[in-house]
């Protein structure tokens, strides 16, 4: 158990080489790959999210912690097969909407969701509604996460909601939105299922939406 705590601490402190070394060592000692997420990576990133909400962590600290989490999970993912296969918390198609090239917020949300056990299909920036519809179909996603920084592009979120409805996928997916000009009222007005005001809130929302 102490080893999992040690790994958690390495992730929270953003020590990627330590996280990698510990992961290798623990695997060599026979710890099952499936144990790492519930016992170290998910709780560590939940703590990072808490610190971000409480204004103890800021963008640099969150990015560094996410990189450390990735150093561990990159080793583990290829091993999560057979008896160790982990059921993803959900499959999320995410992207910054058409006309918008800003991705740092979207990337942080994607990293936090991934560390919370979600499977991420990141379509990048300037993503058309059509591309999102196709990705939802192809990956059988149950969540769509949309980002926009600009007042001139946030309107394109509405087009994605409409396209998913037109494609007959609206009952299959929940849609969450976020980004600087986006609000709860805006999410409601375009028919999205929720608004995440920051990355930790987005993780919390994603958990609620897949459980609903």
């Amino acid at each position: 158990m102490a080893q999992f705590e040690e790994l958690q601490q390495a992730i929270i402190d953003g020590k990627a080489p330590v996280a990698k070394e510990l992961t290798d060592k623990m695997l060599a000692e026979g710890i099952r790959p499936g144990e790492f997420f519930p016992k170290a990576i998910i709780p560590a990133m939940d703590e990072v999210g808490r610190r971000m909400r409480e204004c103890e962590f800021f963008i640099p600290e969150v990015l560094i912690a996410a990189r450390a989490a990735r150093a561990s999970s990159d080793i583990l993912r290829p091993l999560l097969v057979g008896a160790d296969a982990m059921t993803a918390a959900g499959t999320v198609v995410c992207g910054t909407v058409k006309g918008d090239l800003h991705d740092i917020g979207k990337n942080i949300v994607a990293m936090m969701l991934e560390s919370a056990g979600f499977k991420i299909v990141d379509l990048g920036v300037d993503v058309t509604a059509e591309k999102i519809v196709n990705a939802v179909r192809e990956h059988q996603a149950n969540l769509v996460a949309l980002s926009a920084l600009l007042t001139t592009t946030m309107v394109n979120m509405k087009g994605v909601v409409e396209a998913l409805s037109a494609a007959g996928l609206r009952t299959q997916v929940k849609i969450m939105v976020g980004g600087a000009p986006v609000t709860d009222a805006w999410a409601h007005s375009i028919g999205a299922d929720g608004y995440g005001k920051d990355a930790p809130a987005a993780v919390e929302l994603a958990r609620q939406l897949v459980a609903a």
Partner: protein
Amino acid sequence: MTSSRERVRLALEHKEPDCVPLDLGATAVTGMHIDTVYRLRQELDLDPPGTPVKIIEPFQMLGEIKPDLIQALAIDTVQVGGTGTAFGFPMEGWKEWKTFGGVPALVPAGFNTQTEPNGDLLLYPQGDRSAPPSGHMPAGGYYFDVIVRQQPFEEKDLRVEDNLEEFSVLSDAETDHFRRCAEEFYTHTDKALVLNLGALSLGNIARVPGPALKCPRGIRDVEEWYVSLSSRRDLVYKIFEGQTKINLENVQKLYAAVGNRISVVNLTGTDFGAQNGPLVSPQTYRNLFLPFHKQVNDWVHRNTTWKTFIHSCGSVWYLVEDFIAAGFDVLNPVQCSAAHMNPYDLKSKFGDRITFWGGGVDTQATLPFGSPQEVREEVRERIRAFGPGGGFVFNAVHNIQALVPAENVLAMYRTAHEFGRYPLRVASAA
């Protein structure tokens, strides 16, 4: 009648002038998108239809705020800026162009674009189409974004000089341009002059990727830069140290050229706030930025009558005390929609020590999507909050963006002009 310059001076000294001073276009963060400038000029009958508007900032696509518009909106300020652009080509040799919004524009000769098969536009550093592009506007878009061209690097090979490549001491010709501009505006207008030199900002994330450089070296990726503020703190400190040395030299050269004709100098546009809180910890600001901001502020205050201006978007409540400690006199854009940025709280805690320049109406919701009546109500509310005792220069929160209705811009400035007369009608909505 009080002159515009005197009105701004009194406000900056935390005294009540005859009315709240108004700004539009005195900086690259208090301006207006070219499409909106065009529609506003048409609405005010300042130009025949089809008359092009000059782009004065090709990154955010800001349009020129000409003297007739300044006059029509009773603006009190004017920008004194350089001849360069974020993409490294000079503001000269104007040619015709059209925005995706269909607005006729004049762009500098170096504004050379390439249209991608999907309709996206690419823009080139120093206008050189043989170099990898550094700007990208999606088809139908309104702004350029900087293309990150991060070269692979080994930790041991990182050099301070690589992240300083785009910073240099101003040429005599450039300094002379500032001198002529300042002299012209000081002599022929009564406006308050605001001095701008974009390169002064330390770690401005819009400039970190090096859009003016043909082959940027060092740390140029946005995420890598934020990580570096914590994990490569000593390197970043040395970069800021080197840049500040150049900044001090430039500020001294500029002062020698323009003297005390200037009312305010815009020293930094680096964003320290996000929607819900600071982007970096107050400790990071104190250790990494404050010492260098203070050096420049101290020089300005010891040697000139200029007031110093800091722009930072987002929630900066937890940083304002440090901005004041660094010596800044003016805070912009005062994003009241961000967390902990209640206008009354800001005024009561910091209002006697820093001037709020902006905060006049929300740019993310009210101005683009609200009705003129909602704009009027918000403007009156903000004047009630920030106006008492001076220490307030009216402007929207940041640049007025594309797709903002001209009637909302007019509602904003006309309300500020009418309602901003001292003594303020603080108690009632009037």
